């Protein structure tokens, strides 16, 4: 209880301190509004942004691209991860290529995706999916591979068949790792969608940010970034809620005091 209450105090306090420092820095050093606008100006721009009707459409497009890319990454990442985790020789054979796809600077490939998939949302969905895919894949492989050997013995002596092993042991055992991958993945998906919008097309919050900068509306750009941050936060919280529903038993979700009996 006390931990919950204390975050209600510390979070606004740290936020207020940050805003205060920002304001002090901008006024004390007389920083140009075109470089860093003061917090009050950003707040004003943010309210402007929210009261512009087209903002909702742009937000929706970015959210759609992010979620579509994330879902594709989840389906392919978890599916492929489960297969690779269960088939060590295949994992060994494919590992160099999986690492190669990871170390390739994917953001540098975004123009190529735009060339292939056009200026519409498809290219951004692909970028979001490609960025979110890797952490979900590696975490799924890790989760499926690290099923406790003792638990496997328990299933063997209970005469469990393959399906029962999967449903009662392998899937729940791998879920915490998969969800940890999803937590990272959803944040990368939103980055992918926004980077895609930066580089091509005329919609989405990424486009809005670039457009604001091109018009020297730095305050508006900060406002878009703030909105993007809130969006990312909301998605991250959603995955967190998913964890509460799917793995309520896990250490990362509950911190119960152990009953000493």
């Amino acid at each position, binding site marked *: 209880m006390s931990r919950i209450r204390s975050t209600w105090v510390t979070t606004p306090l740290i936020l207020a301190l940050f805003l205060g420092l920002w304001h002090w820095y901008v006024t004390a050093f007389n920083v140009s509004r075109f470089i860093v606008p003061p917090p009050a100006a950003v707040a004003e721009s943010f309210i402007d942004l929210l009261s512009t009707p087209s903002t909702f459409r742009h937000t929706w497009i970015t959210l759609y691209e992010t979620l579509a890319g994330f879902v594709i990454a989840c389906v392919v990442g978890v599916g492929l991860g489960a297969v690779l985790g269960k088939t060590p020789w295949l994992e060994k054979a494919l590992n160099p290529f999986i690492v190669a796809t990871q170390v390739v600077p994917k953001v540098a490939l975004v123009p190529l995706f735009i060339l292939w998939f056009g200026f519409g949302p498809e290219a951004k969905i692909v970028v979001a999916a490609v960025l979110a895919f890797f952490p979900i894949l590696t975490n799924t492989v890790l989760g499926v591979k690290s099923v406790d050997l003792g638990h496997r013995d328990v299933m063997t002596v209970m005469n469990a068949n393959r399906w029962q092993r999967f449903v*009662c042991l392998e899937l*729940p055992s791998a879920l915490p790792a998969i969800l940890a991958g999803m937590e990272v993945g959803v944040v990368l998906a939103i980055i992918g969608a926004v980077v895609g919008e930066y580089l091509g097309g005329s919609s989405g919050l990424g486009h809005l940010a670039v457009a604001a900068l091109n018009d020297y509306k730095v305050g508006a750009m900060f406002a878009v970034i703030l909105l993007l941050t809130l969006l990312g936060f909301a998605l991250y919280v959603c995955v967190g809620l998913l964890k509460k529903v799917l793995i309520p038993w*896990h250490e990362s979700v509950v911190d119960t005091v152990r*009953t000493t009996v």
Partner: protein
Amino acid sequence: MSPDASTQLARGEQPVKVEGKICLHELAIRYHTQSGSVLALDTTDLTFGTGEFVVLLGPSGCGKTTLLRAVAGLLEPSSGSVDIAGRSLWGPSGRDSTAISKLGVVFQDALLFPWYSIETNVALPMKLVGMSKPDRLKRARELCALVGIAGFERVWPRQLSGGMRQRAAIARALAADPEILLMDEPFGALDAMTRDQLNLELQRIWMHTRSTVLFVTHSIPEAVFLADRIVLFSPRPGRVHSIVNVPFARPRAPSLNDDAEFHRIVRDLRSRLEQFA
């Protein structure tokens, strides 16, 4: 009973002519590692009778756990065979599921599934054989009461102490009504007081279920307190050294630990074990 009458050498002895619940015929287990193969259990012939409480006793690396895992179907014999209630454990197509279904196993760690509540863990063997949910939960609650964890059916395993978790593991092992209970140092990780208490409870549960028990331990007093018969193992390679009958009447009380005959058997076993050092 004289020491000579209560102890016999296992090697060269004819298999006991009782209806054996578990029969080991020339069972040997060899582990294959990168640096060669290790004989974990040398050729062993043993028969365990219905309802018998047998303790496998010996130092580390003497093959007692190997034998238990072979009976549990977790290790395939390198040679020889394991028969469970008259059925060969290993058939041409792998483990015989009828033979496996007669077994309940408790490991050194409770190995409860952390994603299931205690009652769901206990009910898992019944779920796997297709028992309906209300039936298996009802039975799980009865089993929780039997092993002394009533009231904790709905909590997560991590919320229980080690002793309570091990009780739940015993309840789970009993869930499928096994004719044979295999226990691999089930109380080895617990403190001495909890251990004594659980030994007493185990005796009560065993007298209630009347299953055949194979119990692995390296604690001599624990072995003498629990066993009808102690099979003593010697290491390198693991093999049966000798068999000791324990004559005390049931139920045995904690005061047995002060009994002179109890101490004599403990001393006798200790002197045998010291030869291996």
